[in-house]
Structure formats: structure tokens, C-alpha cells
């Protein structure tokens, strides 16, 4: 069965600092991978997705993620965070032939001005 682990429930960084949010998945093949962001009182919005090809994918607002198959990881990165990046970030996994997604428990990011 598939699963997703986000080991950090909360992360706090200063504005302008770099960011990495960790995500590890469990799946034997090559998965489809996603990062979503949830702002307060909003639904989840897609940041970026990986299906195949270049393992580094670019998303919105300067976010990127790298698929490392050997490590079963899909960490989210941003070079310089802004206070408006404060939100909850979810990693999700699916796969060819699957009909749904598995979400991690989320990482709450707080950016200190």
C-alpha cells in the first residue's frame, strides 16, 4: 500500500531564509507526486506535480521539488521564503492505475517577518 510521511509537523523560518519541507513515500514503482498548499480557511491548491522526466520540477511562487527515487523522497524547496508563504503544506502520492491519492499529514510552515 502507498503511504506518505512528512516528518516535520511544524517548521518555523525567518523571512528570506531558504526552506526545505521533507516528504517520503512508500511505493515500489515510480509514483505520481504532488505538493499542495492550504492557506487559512481555504481548500488545498496545487503547488507542483511530478509524473515523469526531469526529477526537479518547478512550481508556483518559486517553489521546486526534487524526486529522488533511491531515497523515496520528494522534498519541497524554496530559496527565499516570504511571510505570505505561511500555510500548511501537504505532500501526496498516486500512481498509474490508482484511482485516488494518499496525503501526508501536512507540515505547518510559519515564516517570521
Amino acid at each position, binding site marked *: 500500500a502507498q503511504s506518505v510521511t512528512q516528518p516535520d509537523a511544524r517548521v518555523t523560518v525567518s523571512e528570506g531564509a531558504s526552506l526545505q519541507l521533507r516528504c517520503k513515500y512508500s511505493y515500489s514503482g515510480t509514483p505520481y507526486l504532488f505538493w499542495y498548499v492550504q492557506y487559512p480557511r*481555504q481548500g488545498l491548491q496545487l503547488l507542483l506535480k511530478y509524473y515523469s522526466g526531469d526529477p526537479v520540477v518547478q512550481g508556483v511562487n518559486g517553489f521546486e521539488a526534487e524526486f529522488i527515487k533511491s531515497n523515496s523522497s520528494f522534498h519541497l524547496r524554496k530559496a527565499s521564503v516570504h511571510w505570505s508563504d505561511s500555510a500548511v503544506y501537504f505532500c501526496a502520492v498516486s500512481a498509474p492505475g490508482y*484511482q485516488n491519492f494518499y496525503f501526508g499529514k501536512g507540515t505547518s510552515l510559519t515564516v517570521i517577518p
Partner: protein
Amino acid sequence: EAAVTQSPRNKVTVTGGNVTLSCRQTNSHNYMYWYRQDTGHGLRLIHYSYGAGNLQIGDVPDGYKATRTTQEDFFLLLELASPSQTSLYFCASSEIANTEVFFGKGTRLTVV
């Protein structure tokens, strides 16, 4: 931009009460999903559907029914609500099964 609209946005009901949560998507997506979001659990799939009249069981279906009446409309039914069903519920849709999912803004349900 895909649009997924949930109603109501907030609902309070009593234990044993009957609740229906509604979801409409306006992009003719085939797949629709109901999730619940709880602290410490993330998002958990309740039911999903790949077309009108179809229903598939998700990971946490107990206590919930769902019905997909049209391509656009997907309902979640709690016929005997319990306090354990107090949660934030999200509806979502996608064109095909395992691609990008579009979420509604959520319905906060409180069972007292």
C-alpha cells in the same frame, strides 16, 4: 480554473442528526472525492466517484454514505451523526483518476 463549490460552509448538528453536505464542480470532471481533514491525520478519503451513479469506497467510509446524482453533483450523507464525525470536509474533483485534484473550500461540521 476548475471550480468546486461546497455548501454549507459551516454546519452544526446534534448527535443522531441527519446531515447532507453538497458539492458541485463546473468543469465536467469525471472524478469527485470526499475527504475529511483532522489534526494529526491529514486528509483521509471517505468516498469517491468516477461518474454519475458510480460510488467507490475510500479509506474511512464507516458512518458515511455518498451519492453522485449528476456529473457535477456529489453529496455526502451522515444519517446518524456522531461527535467523532466533527471535522473539516473537503470535496475535490479531477479529470482523470490520478492527476491534479481541485479542492473546494471545505465544510466545517460540528456534531454536538
